[in-house]
């Protein structure tokens, strides 16, 4: 079976804390992702996402606080706007936009984090590996 590589960009206050809670609650999920911790999802630059695709990621998950709950007031709204633009850019590159996923996960939603990871892995498995030429585009 194809095992996709996933990079997860998580804000520390909500999505990261949710991922920690999944651990504390011992909720098993697929080991395909590696998490990178940011203070806020608003720190995430489209360039980081493209870099991940260029370096071999099959999927990128961005996790932030629910709208209205960002620890820094409105960082996640900026993320929302950036992801919307970036998705269009991915189309241009020929990268299926389903490979980039944005999720709002609160510190109390350990179960959601686990199910998002399972679901995303499944989705990426069905999409299969990215073509090397497409990957080149992201660089």
């Amino acid at each position, binding site marked *: 079976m194809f095992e996709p*590589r996933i*990079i997860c960009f998580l804000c*520390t*206050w909500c999505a990261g*804390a949710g*991922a*920690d*809670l*999944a*651990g*504390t609650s*011992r*909720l*098993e*999920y697929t*080991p395909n992702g*590696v*998490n*990178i*911790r*940011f*203070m*806020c999802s*608003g*720190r*995430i*630059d489209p*360039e*980081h996402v493209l*870099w*991940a695709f260029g*370096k*071999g*990621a099959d999927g990128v998950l961005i996790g932030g606080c629910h709208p209205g*709950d960002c*620890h*820094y*007031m*409105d*960082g996640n709204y*900026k993320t929302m706007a*950036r992801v919307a633009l970036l998705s269009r850019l991915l189309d241009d590159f020929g990268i299926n936009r389903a490979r980039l996923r944005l999720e709002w996960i609160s510190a109390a939603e350990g179960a959601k984090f*686990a199910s998002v990871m399972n679901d995303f892995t499944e989705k990426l498995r069905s999409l299969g590996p990215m073509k090397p030429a497409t990957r080149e585009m992201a660089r």
Partner: protein
Amino acid sequence: MKRIGVFVCHCGINIASTVDVQKVAEEVGKMPGVVFATDYIYMCSDPGQALVREKIREENLDAVIVAACSPNLHESTFRTAAGEAGLNPWQLEIANIREQCSWVHSDREKATEKAIRIVKAMVEKTRLNESLDPISVPITRKALVIGGGIAGIQAALDIADAGYEVILVEKEPSIGGHMAQLSETFPTLDCSQCILTPKMVAVGKHGNIELMTYSTVEEISGYVGNFTVKIRRKAAYVDWSICTGCGQCTEVCPAKVPSSFDRNFSTHGAVYVPFPQAVPNKPVIDREHCIHFKTGKCGLCEKTCEIGAIRFDQEDQVFRREVGAVVVAAGYDTLPLSELKEYGAGRVPDVIDGLAFERLLSASGPTNGEIRRPSDGKVPKEVVFVQCAGSRDPERHKPYCSKICCMYTTKHALLYRHRVHDGQPYIFYIDIRTGGKGYEEFYHRAEEDEGIIYLRGKVAKIFRDGAETVVWGTDTLTGKNVEIRADLVVLATAVIPRKSTARLVRKLHIQAGPNGFLAEAHPKLRPVESINSGFYLAGAAQGPKDIPESVAQAGGAACKVISLFSRNRLEQDPAVAWVDEDLCGGCRICISVCPYDARKFDEEKGIAVVNEALCEGCGSCVAACACGATQQKNLTDVQIKNMITASLGGK
């Protein structure tokens, strides 16, 4: 090249049972610059920390990675240890291989491989970490307390008694809150006013407390230790600085306004003092009901007041104050009867709520403590008390338990029996919850000695039939339906956050939970702090609470403020934004995205700069910067990219 040391924790078997920790150390040890890598059974133990310190010195390490549990648990532990060994604390990073790896996977091989990637990514980050110094800022040693109920009063007094100045802001004309409305308190039955009033007076007289009633917080900016607040004081149309509180104006006012303090059982004039023990004991004019404001005539109060304190031309005033900490004690409300359709939606005259019953019981209340029902003033002989009216009802109302109702309903029924000896109280309940000192004993006394009939079950419907109020319920213990034709029904309505709490949450940028109550930083270990530093929580605004709990929490919040104020300066995380002056083109995008006003334009240099004391390190400006001039310290774009590459197994 930096000399890096890596320590992989077994956490007993918590990590080691799913992750091959030796292999992780071995693999990471092969990376360039990693001069020392080992695994150890418990890194956070004293010998574990000693090992880190020892190796920093022995191996001359420039940076350290501890691969263990979440950084939220032990980052500061290990950074302190590193500091003790002479390493800059920001040269130490945690790789989370427990919560985000060993605890969530079972395939040993895959978990080990993932752990290796996690640690390698952290090595890449740490390689480029700079040594930082905490940002030190001064503290304004003055506290703002929002809300003048028992919680706010207690917090204000505790902080003021410790020698610090306090501004107590209350939106009503007087402090006292709901506790001032209560008759007697459970389980001791001491009179609420008698224990509260001395505290109110103490607040009014305290040299360290600036009391601002009839006022609300309009805006707050700044950060822990250094807030600026704008407080709006509503026009009272009475000059309090000269008013003696003689009360003559309130006697001559011909207007009749229902008293919200008395739950509309009595009226006061348009110029009024909410209750006799009010602090400050000065009247306000209710503009909406004042005949002078409506018609331009009357002015009786103005004529009566010999010192000329009535000022129809008074306007709202806005004050600016600097404070270092904020205690939020915004209080609670009860679910309005109108929301309870099944119980008559507030349209059945002899269905009242618990606070209204308190006013009937109160010796200084509208009936002087005689129990008389609102419809015709008759003394009710059959009284039904309904608990959980709107609580523990996730389908229709609030899912949570309001916590205080079991006890106050028992108290109500008991006090009713003391006043009306031939009366019969009934209590409908789902469960009786008596967690509190002396509470269970109090309940048993009511149940066994006071002739109160407890019916276990929910009330389905309440409606009016002639002069009687009919209560339909089920007694689940006998399995029978019950119909009681009652003279009076008292609903223990759900405790809810005040409407103003939601506004306050937005203004202060603090957090509320799903039911609108203020969210604490940690439900068990940090119950009096908000997630946002500098804000502390007290009383029922954080969740339903009784008086002793509110007082205890207020004391806890005050203690936190006092401990904050006892420091000389505050230290803040230095992982803030900075600007490469050579790269910055002066486009000012960063200024527009900063939520904290921390970015300014330096006209002279033509570049954007960062105020480090204001920067919270969210990184929004870094992501927005088009030319890469703005970076976040120890989380630069290069570091992020290197981490990504390492996470994907690349170099």
